[in-house]
C-alpha cells in the first residue's frame, strides 16, 4: 500500500508529456536528441509502470486512490485524483511496452522525414495523454486526457500536413470523435448533476461506489449510453467508425500507436472503467445499456470484418481488422466478460502493433507502396519481417497454444455463449473469427507468398532499428500466450481481483476446440481461395482478385469454388461481397455524409422530400426543407465577416445586460 509509486502516480503520464514539451523546444536540427529524449522518456514511463504493476498486487483491495483538490469555488471544491488498480496497471504496462517498440521503430521509419523532431514530440505527447486516461480517478480528469489523446491523434494523423488527404483525414478523425465526445460530455454533466461528484472512488462517496450508484436510478441507463457515445467515437464503433480507416493517412508508426496502444483502446478502457454505471440494476448480468453495447459491438465486428476482406491496401485491411476486434471487445464487455475483453485488448495491443510495424517495414522496404496486389514473394526478400508478420497474423487469427489472441478470443466467445439474452452474438462473433482468419490469410499470401510482384523489385529488409522492435513484439506476443493461458489464468483473476490457481482442464474445454475449428476454417478457406493468387505471375499488379466483382472470369472462378466447398461458405462469401459493398456504400454516402455536417443532411432530406413531393404524397415537406435551408441561411447571414456588425451586436448585448441590471437594482 505504501509503495512509493502509488503516491506519485502523476509521474507516469507526466514523464512523456514533459519530454514532449522539452523536444518541442529543441532546435529543428536536433534529430537524434529528440529521438533519444523520447525513447528515454518512454523507458522511464515503462519502468514506473512496471513498478506500479508490481505495487498493485501488494495493495489492499488491489486499489489505491490519491485525490486532491483542484479548484475551490465558494463552498464547493472540484476534486481530481489518480487511481491505480489491476485494470490500470495492466494497461500501463501494455501501453508503455508497445509504445517503446513503436518509438524505436519510428527512428528508422521516419529517418528521412524533415519534421523528425516534431514527430517525436507528438508521439511522446500521445503516449503521455493515454497514460493519463488510464490513471485518472475522475471522469473529468479522464475527459481532459481523453481530449488530449484526441488532439494528439489529430496532430499525428495529419502529420504529413502537405498532403491534402492527410489533412482531411485528421479533420475527419477529430470531428468524428468529437461527435462521440459530445455525448460523453453530456453524460459527464448528467452524472455530476445526479451524484455530485466525478471521482470514481472516494472512500465510499465516489460515483462508482454503491451510494452514488443507488441514487442514479433510471438515469443510469441514459448516462451509461451517453458515456458509451464517447467510447463509440474513440474506439471506432459503428456508426462512428468511419474515421479509423482514413486515419491510415498518418505515418505507419502512428497507425500502430492509434490502433494498438492508445486511441482506440481508450474507448474500451472507458467502458471497462465505468462498468459499474452500466451494470446498475442488472438482472442476471443484463441491462439495457449493456445490451446496446453488445449489439453495437456485434454490428461493428461483423461489418468491419466483411469490409476487410475486400480491401487491397495493406494498412486498411489492418485498420478494419482493428475495428472488428474492437467490436469483439465491446461484445465481451457487454455480455459481462470484462476481464476477457480487457485481456483481448492487451493481447490485441501487442499483436496489432506488431502487424502495423510489420506493415510499416514492408512499406518502407517497398518505397512507400501500400497496394498488396503489387506485392508478392517478399518471404525471401524480407525474412525477419515475414516471420514476425506471420506470428502477428496467427495471433490475430487466433491460432491456439502459442499465440496470445487465441486464448483471449476463446474467452470472449465463451463469455458470449453464456449470455442469457440471445445466442445470436455468439454465432455472429464466430463468423467474425472465421472472417478474421480469412482476410489475414489473404493478406499474408498476397504480400509474402508467390512470385515477386511489380513493387517487390529492389525490396530490401529494413534496418535493425526497425526489425528489432518487430522481434521484440513477436516475442511479447508469444510470451503473452503463456501468460494468458487458461490453465493458469492469473492475469484474468488479477483483473477481477482473485487468486489464481492451476487447472489444466481449461485447456481441453470444448470452447477451445470450437475456436480452433473456426480459425482453421478461416485460414483454410483463405489458403484455398488465394492459392491461385500466389501461383500467378506477379510481374503486373493482380487485377483478378477473387472479390472484384467487375471481372466475369472472377465470378466463374468464385462459383467453381463455391461448388467445391460447402454451399454455406459460398453464400457467406457472396453475402460478404454484397454486404461489404453495401457497407462501403453506406460508408461513402451515408455515414460520411452525416459526419460532414448537418447541411449535407439537410440536402439529403431535401432530395428525399422532393421525391415524396413528386409522387404527390406530401407537398408540405418541401416547405419544411426550404424553411430549414432558409433558417440556415439566416444564421449564415449573421456570420457576415463584418467586424462592426459583430461589435454592434456585442454592444447591444451589453446594453441589454445593463438595462437588466438597472431594472433589478
Amino acid at each position: 500500500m505504501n509503495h512509493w509509486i502509488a503516491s506519485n502516480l502523476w509521474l507516469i503520464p507526466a514523464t512523456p508529456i514533459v519530454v514532449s514539451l522539452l523536444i518541442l523546444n529543441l532546435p529543428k536540427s536536433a534529430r537524434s536528441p529528440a529521438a533519444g529524449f523520447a525513447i528515454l522518456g518512454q523507458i522511464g514511463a515503462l519502468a514506473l509502470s512496471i513498478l506500479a504493476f508490481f505495487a498493485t498486487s501488494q495493495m489492499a483491495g488491489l486499489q489505491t486512490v490519491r485525490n486532491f483538490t483542484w479548484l475551490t469555488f465558494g463552498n464547493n471544491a472540484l476534486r481530481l485524483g489518480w487511481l491505480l488498480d489491476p485494470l490500470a496497471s495492466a494497461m500501463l504496462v501494455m501501453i508503455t511496452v508497445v509504445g517503446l517498440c513503436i518509438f524505436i521503430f519510428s527512428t528508422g521509419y521516419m529517418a528521412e522525414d524533415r519534421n523528425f523532431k516534431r514527430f517525436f514530440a507528438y508521439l511522446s505527447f500521445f503516449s503521455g495523454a493515454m497514460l493519463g486516461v488510464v490513471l485518472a480517478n475522475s471522469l473529468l480528469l479522464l475527459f481532459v486526457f481523453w481530449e488530449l489523446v484526441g488532439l494528439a491523434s489529430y496532430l499525428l494523423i495529419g502529420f504529413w500536413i502537405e498532403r491534402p488527404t492527410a489533412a482531411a483525414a485528421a479533420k475527419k478523425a477529430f470531428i468524428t470523435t468529437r461527435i462521440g465526445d459530445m455525448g460523453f460530455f453530456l453524460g459527464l454533466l448528467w452524472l455530476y448533476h445526479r451524484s455530485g461528484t466525478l471521482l470514481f472512488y472516494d472512500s465510499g462517496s465516489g460515483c462508482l461506489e454503491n451510494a452514488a450508484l443507488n441514487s442514479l436510478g433510471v438515469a443510469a441507463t441514459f448516462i451509461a449510453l451517453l458515456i458509451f457515445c464517447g467510447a463509440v467515437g474513440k474506439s471506432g464503433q459503428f456508426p462512428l467508425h468511419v474515421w479509423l480507416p482514413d486515419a491510415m493517412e498518418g505515418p505507419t508508426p502512428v497507425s500502430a500507436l492509434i490502433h494498438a496502444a492508445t486511441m482506440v483502446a481508450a474507448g474500451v478502457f472507458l467502458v471497462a472503467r465505468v462498468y459499474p454505471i452500466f451494470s446498475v440494476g442488472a438482472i442476471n448480468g443484463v441491462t439495457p445499456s449493456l445490451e446496446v453495447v453488445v449489439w453495437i459491438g456485434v454490428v461493428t465486428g461483423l461489418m468491419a470484418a466483411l469490409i476487410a476482406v475486400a480491401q487491397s491496401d495493406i494498412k486498411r485491411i489492418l485498420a478494419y481488422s482493428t475495428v472488428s476486434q474492437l467490436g469483439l471487445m465491446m461484445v465481451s464487455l457487454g455480455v459481462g466478460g470484462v476481464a476477457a475483453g480487457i485481456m483481448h485488448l492487451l493481447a490485441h495491443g501487442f499483436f496489432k502493433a506488431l502487424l502495423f510495424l510489420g506493415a510499416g517495414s514492408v512499406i518502407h522496404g517497398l518505397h512507400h507502396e501500400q497496394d498488396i496486389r503489387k506485392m508478392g514473394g517478399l518471404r525471401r526478400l524480407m525474412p525477419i519481417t515475414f516471420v514476425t508478420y506471420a506470428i502477428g497474423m496467427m495471433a490475430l487469427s487466433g491460432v491456439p497454444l502459442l499465440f496470445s489472441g487465441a486464448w483471449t478470443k476463446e474467452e470472449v466467445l465463451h463469455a458470449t455463449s453464456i449470455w442469457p439474452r440471445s445466442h445470436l452474438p455468439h454465432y455472429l462473433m464466430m463468423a467474425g473469427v472465421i472472417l478474421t482468419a480469412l482476410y489475414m490469410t489473404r493478406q499474408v499470401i498476397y504480400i509474402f507468398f508467390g512470385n515477386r510482384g511489380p513493387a517487390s523489385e529492389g525490396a530490401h529488409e529494413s534496418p535493425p532499428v526497425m526489425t528489432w522492435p518487430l522481434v521484440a513484439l513477436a516475442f511479447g506476443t508469444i510470451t503473452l500466450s503463456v501468460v494468458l493461458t487458461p490453465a493458469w489464468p492469473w492475469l484474468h483473476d488479477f483483473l477481477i481481483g482473485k487468486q489464481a490457481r492451476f487447472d489444466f482442464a481449461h485447456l481441453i474445454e470444448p470452447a477451445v476446440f470450437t475456436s480452433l475449428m473456426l480459425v482453421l476454417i478461416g485460414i483454410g478457406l483463405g489458403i484455398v481461395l488465394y492459392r491461385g493468387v500466389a501461383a500467378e505471375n506477379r510481374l503486373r499488379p493482380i487485377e483478378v482478385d477473387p472479390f472484384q466483382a467487375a471481372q466475369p472470369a472472377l465470378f466463374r472462378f468464385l462459383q467453381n469454388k463455391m461448388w467445391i466447398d460447402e454451399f454455406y461458405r459460398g453464400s457467406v462469401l457472396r453475402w460478404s461481397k454484397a454486404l461489404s459493398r453495401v457497407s462501403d456504400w453506406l460508408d461513402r454516402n451515408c455515414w460520411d455524409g452525416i459526419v460532414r455536417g448537418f447541411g449535407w443532411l439537410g440536402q439529403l432530406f431535401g432530395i428525399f422530400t422532393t421525391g415524396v413531393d413528386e409522387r404527390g404524397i406530401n407537398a408540405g415537406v418541401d416547405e419544411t426543407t426550404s424553411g430549414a435551408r432558409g433558417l440556415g441561411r439566416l444564421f449564415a447571414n449573421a456570420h457576415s465577416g463584418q467586424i462592426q456588425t459583430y461589435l454592434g451586436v456585442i454592444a447591444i448585448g451589453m446594453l441589454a445586460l445593463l438595462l437588466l441590471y438597472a431594472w433589478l437594482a
Partner: protein
Amino acid sequence: MNTAALAIIAIFTLSAALAAATLPKLMHAALMFAAAFVGLAAFFFLLSAEFLGLVLVFVYVGAVAVLIVFTILLTRHDLEKDRGFNLSGIIVAIAVFIGLAIAIFKTGSLPVVTPEIPTLTVKQIGAALMTDYVWPLQCVGILLTAALIGALILVIEEKK
C-alpha cells in the same frame, strides 16, 4: 476649483474624443485621439493617481499615437476614398450611453461617503508591483515581448 477644473477637463476630453471619432480626416482624428488621452491623463491627476496619468501620456501620446500616425502614413493610398459614416453606430452608442447612465444612477452599491484622499506614491506602486503583483508584472512583460515580436513578424516584408 476642483469642480471647475473637472468641468473644463471633461469638456476638453470629451470634445477631443468626439472629434477623434467623427473627424473625416484620419490624421486629424489620430491627433485628436492624442489630445483626448492627454485629457484623460488629467482626470487621473484629479483622482490623485499622478503616476498613472504620466504613464498614460507616455504610452498613448508617445507611443500609440505615433504608431497610429505611422500606420496612417503607410496605408495612405487608401485614404482618398470616401468611406461614409455608419449611422446605426450612433444610435447604438447613444443607447449604450443612456443604458450606462441609467445603471449608474440607479445602482445602490456605490459608496455614499467620500473617504479621505489616498496618497499613492510611485514608491508604493513600485513596491506593490514587485511584491503582490510580481506575477502579473512578469506576465505582462512576456505579453509585451510576444506582442513586439508578433508585430514585427506581421509587418516584415515577405521575401520574394
